[in-house]
């Protein structure tokens, strides 16, 4: 079967969480794809499933969550079928991830140098002592003073510095894909700019692809080549960044862009009526239908498939129903 993305291709991903309140159907057939060296932004609001998707790709979903269906092809390998050891090699090797709160990701009682060393040692199968020269080089690469940082504890570093360390650790093994889950949401604006610049520069140097998860449309516009918009566990639109902002096709995307304030904008902000649905009892059919100004009968009963509407631009919406379907329904 033809893959849309040569580096990463996710289709039909379904993830649910079994809690006492009921089953949270977090992801309901998510699709996503990337090529090598590409920058894909995954945007959406609370509950859309963007973080769950990346955790599922890394196979880090734990009880009470469960991947129920789907296919994830990464660099030729079918990740959901790999045995745990194989997946362990992929994680932190060809594919790595950085998170929102860098200081939570670092062990507070171990020196930073040791933790970086661990990451390198595992991938290269050498002892941690031998990793120090490489760790120093990596710290220099991310713009930090190696001697000072290697011997520090995480709490001695600022938010921006910690995130640089995380990026360094993430890229130490020269992965093909770096997943960044809201890497700058906890940082100040000026530091955020530095970190995004760093990610950009390193990605160009090392050639890795970046999957950037964020809720900030400004960050997406500046950093990403392509965008995937998610809503309540569905992939609703995919396009190049330029095209998405120019001509958003899905009503949710349109609504979202009208709600984003920006310096210099003169028209009034528009809010999307209604609220994000409860995923224990989500609306049937298209999960956006209760809030959609263009809702039709079909939307209430059937989930629209993600179809290509113009070259490189995909939408999951019945307003564009008459276009050719690219894949079969899962």
């Amino acid at each position: 079967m033809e893959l849309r993305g040569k580096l990463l291709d996710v289709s039909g991903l379904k993830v649910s969480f079994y809690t006492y309140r009921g089953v949270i159907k977090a992801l309901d057939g998510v699709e996503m794809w990337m090529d090598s060296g590409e920058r894909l932004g995954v945007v959406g609001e609370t509950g859309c499933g963007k973080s769950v998707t990346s955790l599922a790709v890394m196979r880090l979903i734990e009880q009470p969550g469960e991947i129920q269906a789907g296919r994830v092809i990464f660099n030729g390998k079918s990740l959901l079928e790999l045995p745990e050891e194989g997946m362990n090699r992929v994680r932190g090797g060809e594919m790595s991830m950085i998170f929102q709160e860098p200081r939570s990701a670092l062990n507070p009682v171990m020196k930073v140098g040791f933790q970086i060393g661990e990451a390198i040692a595992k991938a290269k199968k050498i002892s941690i002592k031998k990793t120090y020269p490489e760790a120093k080089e990596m710290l220099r690469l991310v713009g930090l003073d190696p001697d000072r940082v290697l011997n520090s504890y995480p709490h001695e570093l600022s938010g921006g510095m910690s995130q640089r360390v995380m990026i360094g650790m993430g890229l130490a093994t020269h992965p093909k894909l770096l997943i960044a889950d809201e890497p700058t949401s906890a940082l100040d604006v000026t530091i955020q700019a530095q970190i995004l610049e760093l990610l950009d520069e390193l990605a160009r140097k090392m050639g890795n692809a970046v999957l950037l998860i964020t809720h900030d449309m400004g960050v997406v516009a500046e950093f990403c080549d392509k965008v995937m918009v998610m809503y309540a566990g569905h992939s609703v639109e995919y396009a190049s960044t330029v095209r998405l902002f120019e001509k958003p096709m899905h009503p949710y995307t349109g609504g979202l862009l009208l709600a984003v304030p920006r310096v210099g904008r003169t028209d009034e902000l528009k809010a999307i009526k209604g609220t994000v649905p409860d995923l224990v009892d989500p609306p049937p059919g298209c999960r956006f239908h209760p809030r959609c100004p263009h809702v039709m009968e079909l939307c209430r009963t059937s989930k629209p498939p993600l179809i290509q509407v113009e070259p490189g631009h995909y939408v999951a919406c019945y307003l564009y129903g008459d276009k050719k379907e690219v894949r079969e329904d899962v």
Partner: protein
Amino acid sequence: MSDTLVKIQNLKTYFPVKKSIFSRKLFVKAVDDVTMDVPTGSTFAVVGESGSGKTTLARSILRLIEPTSGQVFFDGTEVLKLGGKDLLEIRRKMQIVFQDPYNSLHPRKLIKNIIGEGMKIHFKISETEIRQKIGEVLQEVGLRDEHMFRYPHEFSGGQRQRIAFARAIVLKPKFIVLDEPTSALDVSVQAMVLKMLKEIRVQEKLTYMFITHNLSLVDYIADRVAVMYVGEVVEMGEKNTVFTHPSHPYTDLLMASNPIPDPKFQREKRLLKGEIPSSINPPSGCRFHNRCPYADQRCTDEAPELRERSPGHFVRCHYPL
């Protein structure tokens, strides 16, 4: 009512920090000699990053944190010298909405008690009247009467902020400090809340002080803006003036760092290097000198004063842009 509702003069809020019994006393100079005038009926934005002192400033004005020195005038009355009944009266007129929707409403209390408590403290009115007023104010913020019989955890983040705002306006204040009221909300919810804030300000003839780190919000909602850096005001003026002609290098770089939601917008890569300095031991001279692309020896030696560059536009810089 005069033109200036809230006048802040030389306000300082220092927090003592003791490293050990042997080290000398150190202070976190969170708010270090801040002077600003908030015009009646306007939205005055205070922008800054971590350590700028904007949050401490907000709380110091309301005396939720006691300032170390300086003066705050509310409609002519000196707030910092008040006590007892007078302070209580001022408390009614100056309100605050906090950033965190999940922690600013008491988790074990009904909405009606959360909103109604203020009225019980300040007025002697009957339970029926209280309920009526609560119902009115809930409708004003876009919720319903019956919501007063629920608990905070039954509401979403956006709804909780509306409730927090309802609590603030039910006492019919004149001045409301909004401390990053939408930072924890999704974009579409933020839009709703911001619109509501704008509408109600006009309806109820309020004056806002809007604290944020997000310049896009400042552009949307504010009339005047003050930029803070490590406890000091570095630039202050009409929003349009400051946004179109940022005069302090920090303001300029702050704006340059703000991501614009438009992929076609070509921005020059101008980054602010370095880390935000600590407020315990700020850099000598101009606090921004070690990160400023235009700094020279004078900037290291001499701290610049806040000077009026053009009517209403103030900058704290030896070489304003």
